Every structure is written in C-alpha cells, then in structure tokens.
C-alpha cells in the first residue's frame, strides 16, 4: 500500500500533557521551534563574542579582561558556534524540520522519536560546549579549525578541559545531526503525499534534502578527526601529534601527521560550507519566486545545480590547504575543481536574476533579505574565485581578505536567508505577521551594516593585515589608516550586533501581539500554505492528506485572475478558475 494511504488510515498519537506537547515533543513543528530557538540563543552568544573581539581590534586594550588568551577563546567559540551550532542546526534542524513534512504533504517525519532524540542530543552538545566557559582554563582557543599539534599542546588556552569539551560536544552534535539527517532524507524519499513527485518538490526541500545527504557523508570526517584527537589528548597516542618539544620538554608523541588532520577536517569542512549554502539556495529560490510573483526560472536546472554542487563539494576540500605544504600537483587539481563548482553556482545566480526579470516584485521584508542575499553571495562568491587560484591565494592566505570572503559568502549571505526565511514562514508558525517597520529597520541596518563591516576588510587584506592576530599596533607594515578603518569597522559591528535585539524583540512581541496573518498571507502556491489550520495542528492535514497536481511555482498564470495557483488545484479546478476569470473580465468590460 502506498505510504500516503497508510498514513491516512493510521491513528495519530496526539500528545496529551504539556510535557509531551512542548518539551518531549515528537511533533516536527515543535522540534523545529526548539531547534531554532536554541540555535538563535547560541548565535546571540557568538554575536557577543564577535563584539568583544572587535573591541580589542578597533580599540586595543579597551577591555581589561581581553588578553591574548581570551581573544583566541572568543574567536574559536565564535567561529564554531556560528558554523555548526547556529547555521547547520538552524537550516537543517529548524527549517528542515518545519518545512519538509509540510512541503511534501506528510503528517510528520517518518521517525518522530528519533527526531525528538536529535534535538535533545543537539541541546546536550550545546550545553557541553557552553560549559567550557566555566571550567578551569576556559574554552579552547585553538581557532575554529582546531589544528593539532597546537590545539592540544601546552600554551594554547583551554588545553586541559576546553579542547576536550569541544571535541566531545562536536561528537554529540554529529550524533544529533545524523539522527536528524536520516529523518529528513527518509521522509523526503518515503512520505511524500499523492502526486508530490521529486520534481514537484519546492527548491527549499531540494536544498535541505541534498544538504542532509551531504551532512550524513561529511560529518563522519569530523567525527573521525575528533575521536582521534581525543585519543591523542587523553590516551597519549600519536595519530596527529609529531615529535615535539614543548616548553623545553620533549613530549611523548612521535611520528603523527598534522596534515592528516587537516585533510580529514576539510573533507568535512568544505562540504559543510555547502551544507549551509544549499538550504539557503533552496529557501531563497522560494522567497524570490513567491515575492516576485513569478515561477522560478529553470527549475530543473536549479535542481541539477543543487545536486552538482553537492557532489563537487566533496572534491574541493584541499583548496583550504594550499599553504600547508602538500604536493603542488594537488593544488592544481583542487584549483580546477574549485573553479568548476563556480559553474553550477553561477547558474543559480543567473536563474534568480532571470526569475526577477519582469516580475511583479513586492519589496516585503523577506524579499528584501532575499535580494540582499543575491548581492552578498555574489560578492563573496567572486572573491572565492580569487582565493581558489593557488597563485592568488598564497599571498592572500591568512589575511583579512580571507576573513572578508568567508564572512560574506557563508556568514552574512546564509544569515540573510535565515532572517528572510523567518520573516516569511513566521506567519505559518505562529499565525501572526512580524512587525513590518521593525523588520525593515532590522533589514537595512543589517544589510548596510554588514557591508560596512566586511567590505573594507578586503582592502585590509590587500594591505597585508594578517588574520588571527590579537593586537595590530606596533607593526610597521600596518599603517595608521588601517587602524582607523578597524575602529570604524568595530563601531559598525557593535551597531549591527545591538540592532539584532530589534529582531529578538520583534519575534517576542509579534508572537503574541502581531497582526493576524491568516492562512496564506503571501499568496504562496506551495503546500505548507494550504494547511486547513494556521498554525498547523498535530498531523498537519486533518482527515485527508492533500493531493498535489502541480509544481510549487504557478504564479501569474495567464488567464487566471488570482496570481497564484496552489499545488492542490487540479486541472479541472484550474479550468473553472480560468472561466471564472474570463467571466469577471467580460463583466468589467461591460461596466
């Protein structure tokens, strides 16, 4: 029997108590909110850490507690939290959990219990990570890449407890991500409703689906490196640790390969960029199509581009290692693959622009964020072409040019999509709209602010300002103008950081006091906007699952007055709509 029919006939296990409804919930929507709120909470901590770092760079010595150790600890935690615990968790655990079942017409994830466990493991990972702020020596300060031998050698902040907690937390996170990923992939493969073919799925689902597959294959590399480094640290093995003299003492390690760690780390690390980017690509495609009232341009191409990017992202990892001393021929190979991956990526950008072409563009807050994403991703992507070339990368390596590049392409750009996505789907989650004025204010400060922060960093990088330095004063090669620019960046960074409170306030206020949104405030065609209740109740669809007759992008269909056709409208119903529209037009002509 087909899955959808079975899902219809089975009794739903309604949660009875407050505990099973909101805490130990197995409902994908509640788990999505749990994931999102936790991720946003740790994200705010990471924003505070970046503010502390910027204070030290812009106004050296202004914070008494900000010594070199504290700076490196803040930097490490900022990077790791943003990449793993905010972006990965929010896109897959938050958006993935909420949107996949609703967009494919399922009642829930296929393994709800495992889904619940996934969140609680994620929360445990976060608790373990944050607990490192309170242990002797504090969190690790080895940089978010955790390169050995430095990360587990005396002299690095957090070498006793911090690094162990970081590695354990990562291992727990990977277990959580695996449980989540298995759910997302299996749900997409198995639980789609009647008529929801793979090529009728919204691009959001495609992006999250592909990113989940990549996460399942790439996270084991981080797990392997974390376990092996834990062995080196706790049991004295020499997987990664070479013979080394530390503080005048010969350590017991010998023969280990730090480069091996780098290969393992980046075999995870580069796909990780796309684990964050692909869901962003998918979500932004849906935002652009909905708010430009145009079908997405080149849907099939967009899907194949997502798949191509996913596959190619596994063969580009060593472009992060051009200066590691690896075989030069490797550099040539990885430069070529890196440039090839620009092709499907550029294709997506073209298709977004062509979707906008002659569209009925509504400059709503989600659309503003989506448009800002395209521009930001383009800038970040173009500097990626510079850094992908070995000969350009070598002089720019470890400068602020790199900092600017990756913040633009995988920091700001995905975060803009996160915001756009939240403004777009918040009405479905709560039944209320976020405040528009606050939203626009938040958008302009964030968008212009992040440009003011990261654009100048390209110039600082060209000037040779190295990254990862705790203090930049008293270096002859760093001119005074760079110091002034640093002070400017810090002021803007603090402003942008504080302005995020607008967003937090808007979320809290609008949840209870926001304008009622109705079921489909944006006039969107995809399935999640066609639920019988808003917010959707447990089981999502009432007695009958929806039947899908078309793709998710039927906007501004010629001959139809309503400028969108929901996925649930059949050909006969569409014909009726067409006749009705013709009748209305004829009546208009008469009057």
């Amino acid at each position, binding site marked *: *029997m*087909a*899955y*959808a029919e*079975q899902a219809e006939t089975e009794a739903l296990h309604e949660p009875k108590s407050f505990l099973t409804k909101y805490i130990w919930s197995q409902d994908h929507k509640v788990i999505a909110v749990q994931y999102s709120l936790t991720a946003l909470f740790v994200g705010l901590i990471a924003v505070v850490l970046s503010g502390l770092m910027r204070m030290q760079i812009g106004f050296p010595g202004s914070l008494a507690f900000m010594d070199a150790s504290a700076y490196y600890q803040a930097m490490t935690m900022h990077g790791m939290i943003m990449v793993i615990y905010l972006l990965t968790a929010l896109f897959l655990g938050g958006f993935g959990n909420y949107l996949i079942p609703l967009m494919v017409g399922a009642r829930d994830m*296929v*393994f709800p219990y495992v889904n619940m466990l996934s969140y609680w493991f994620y929360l445990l990972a976060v608790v373990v990570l944050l607990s490192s702020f309170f242990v002797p020596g504090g969190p690790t300060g080895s940089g978010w890449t955790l390169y050995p031998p430095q990360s587990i050698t005396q002299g690095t902040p957090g070498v006793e407890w911090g690094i162990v907690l970081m590695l354990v937390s990562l291992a727990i996170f990977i277990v959580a991500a695996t449980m989540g990923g*298995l*759910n997302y*992939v*299996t749900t997409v*493969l*198995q*639980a*789609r*409703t*009647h*008529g*929801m*073919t*793979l*090529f*009728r799925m919204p691009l959001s689902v495609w992006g999250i689906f592909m990113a989940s597959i990549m996460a*399942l*294959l790439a996270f*084991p*590399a981080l*797990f*392997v490196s974390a*376990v092996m480094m834990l*062995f080196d640290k706790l*049991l*004295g*093995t*020499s*997987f990664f640790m070479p013979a080394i003299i530390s503080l005048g003492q010969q350590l*017991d390690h*010998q*023969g*280990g*390969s730090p480069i*091996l760690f780098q*290969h393992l780390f980046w*075999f995870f690390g580069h796909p990780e960029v796309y684990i964050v980017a692909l869901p962003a690509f998918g979500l932004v495609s849906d935002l652009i199509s909905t708010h430009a009232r*145009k*079908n997405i*341009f*080149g*849907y*099939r*191409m967009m899907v194949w581009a997502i798949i191509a990017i996913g596959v190619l992202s596994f063969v580009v990892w060593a472009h992060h290692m051009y200066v590691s001393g690896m075989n030069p021929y490797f550099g040539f190979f990885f430069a070529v693959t890196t440039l090839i991956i620009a092709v499907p990526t550029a294709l997506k950008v073209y298709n977004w622009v*062509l*979707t906008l*072409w*002659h569209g009925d563009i509504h400059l709503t807050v989600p659309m503003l964020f989506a448009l800002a994403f395209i521009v930001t991703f383009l800038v970040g992507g173009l500097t990626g072409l510079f850094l992908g070339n070995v000969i350009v990368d070598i002089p720019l390596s470890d400068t602020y040019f790199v900092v600017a590049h990756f913040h633009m392409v995988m920091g700001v750009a995905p975060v803009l999509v996160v915001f756009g996505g939240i403004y777009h789907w918040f009405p479905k989650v709560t039944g209320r709209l976020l405040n528009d004025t606050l939203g626009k204010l938040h958008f302009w400060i964030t968008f212009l602010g992040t440009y003011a922060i990261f654009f100048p960093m390209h110039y600082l990088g060209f000037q040779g300002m190295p990254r990862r330095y705790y203090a930049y004063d008293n270096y002859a090669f760093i001119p005074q103008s760079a110091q002034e620019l640093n002070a400017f960046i810090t002021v803007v960074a603090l402003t942008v950081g504080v302005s995020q409170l607008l967003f937090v306030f808007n979320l809290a206020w609008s949840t209870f006091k926001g304008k009622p949104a109705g079921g489909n405030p944006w006039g969107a065609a995809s399935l999640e906007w066609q639920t019988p209740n808003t917010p959707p109740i447990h089981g999502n669809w009432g007695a009958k699952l929806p039947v*899908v007759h078309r*793709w998710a992008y*039927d906007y*501004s269909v*010629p001959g139809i007055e309503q400028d969108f056709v929901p996925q649930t409208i059949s050909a006969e119903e569409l014909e009726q709509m067409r006749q009705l529209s013709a009748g209305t037009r004829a009546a208009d002509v008469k009057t």
Partner: protein
Amino acid sequence: MNRLLLKNADGADPNGSWSRDPEGIQSAEGANRNQTAKIGLRLFLVVVSSLFFLFLLASIARSQMSDWLPLTEPLAPLANPWQLWVNSAFLVLSCIALQWARMAARQARLNATVIGFVVGGVFAIAFLAGQFWVWQQFVAWGYFVASNPANSFFYLLTGVHGLHLLGGLVAWGRTVARFLNRVPLPQLSASVELCAIYWHYLLGLWIVLFALLTSTPQTYEAIARLCGLR
C-alpha cells in the same frame, strides 16, 4: 540566444521550455511504508561506511610513517591471529542464527524465530567477549594503545566496530524483551529483519577490518600507493 532566454524568463510564453511544471520522474505513489525503516537503516549503514572508510584511509596514511611497527611481524600479537579467527567464527554463527530467525519470521514460525534470534545475540556477545579477550592479550604482551600507531588503530577500529555491535545488541535486547512480553510475531518480524540486516553489515565490515589489520606492510604500502598517499 539572449532574447530567447529573456523571453523565457518573461513568463510571457506559458509553454516556454524552462517554465513548465516539470511533473516528475518518479511516482510518489510507489513508496511503501513497510520499507521506511529499512531505508532508514540502509542510510545509516551508508553513514557508518563513510565513518569506517575515513578511519581506514587515516590508518593507511599513518602507516606510511617510519614509526609504524606492524602487528603482523614475528612475535607480534597478530603474527598468528587465531583468536581473531575464533571471534570471526562467533560473528559468522551469529549472523547465520539471525538469518535463520529472519526466514522463520517470514514463515510465521514463532519458536524458530525466537530461538534463532536469541542464539544470534548470544554469539554476538561471545564475539564481543572474544574481542575484549584479544585486547587483554595485547595489554599482557605490552602492546598498549599509545605505544605504537599500529596498536592505536587496532584498538580504535576494533573498539568502534564493537561499539556498533553493542548498539545493535541494545536493539536486540529490546526485541527480546518484547518477545518475553508476548508481543505477537507479525509486530516483531520487522525488528528481526532489521537486526539481521545490521548484523550482516557488521560481519562484512569486520571481514574488511580483519583483512586490513592482519595485512603485511607491503599490502599497506600498495594500498597507500594506489590512493596516492605515498
């Protein structure tokens, strides 16, 4: 070309080649719910494969460093790995018993299913005990986890494999408890089936690990060359 592109993008032509409902390449009706758990398990096995593939690649890369002392040298613990052969036999018997239980469950023979399933789990426990015994032998011979990278990888790989089997035994134990609670067979046959698939995979994985752990340095070198790690 550009005009055609923009005309398509315009949406002016509802039949424009790039703007149609792409329909689908796969019918959504084909999905069978009974397959869902199996698909989930198989996906999980892909993840485990990725994990062990990377562990093995790391061990081959590390083996090419000069300080690697092979465990298969004369007088080293794996020069004659008879204990590992015994353990392997336990795991093979475990898989046979589970496969028998799986086939009996399909034919709705309750007693045979229970016997096969329980015996399968007991042999798996024997395998784990045997692996632990090998570890003790290593320690008794002075082959500690940190004394050489070859030892480190031996403990690591057998340990992670054992942990996966232990995880399987948790699922096995839960199913046995449900048998004891007289849950009807049709509700349990899926669990028996999943356990059998998982066990067979872990046997296959163990054969690969066994082969690699008892390989000569020349084999390691050949694989390393093949992978471009040398």
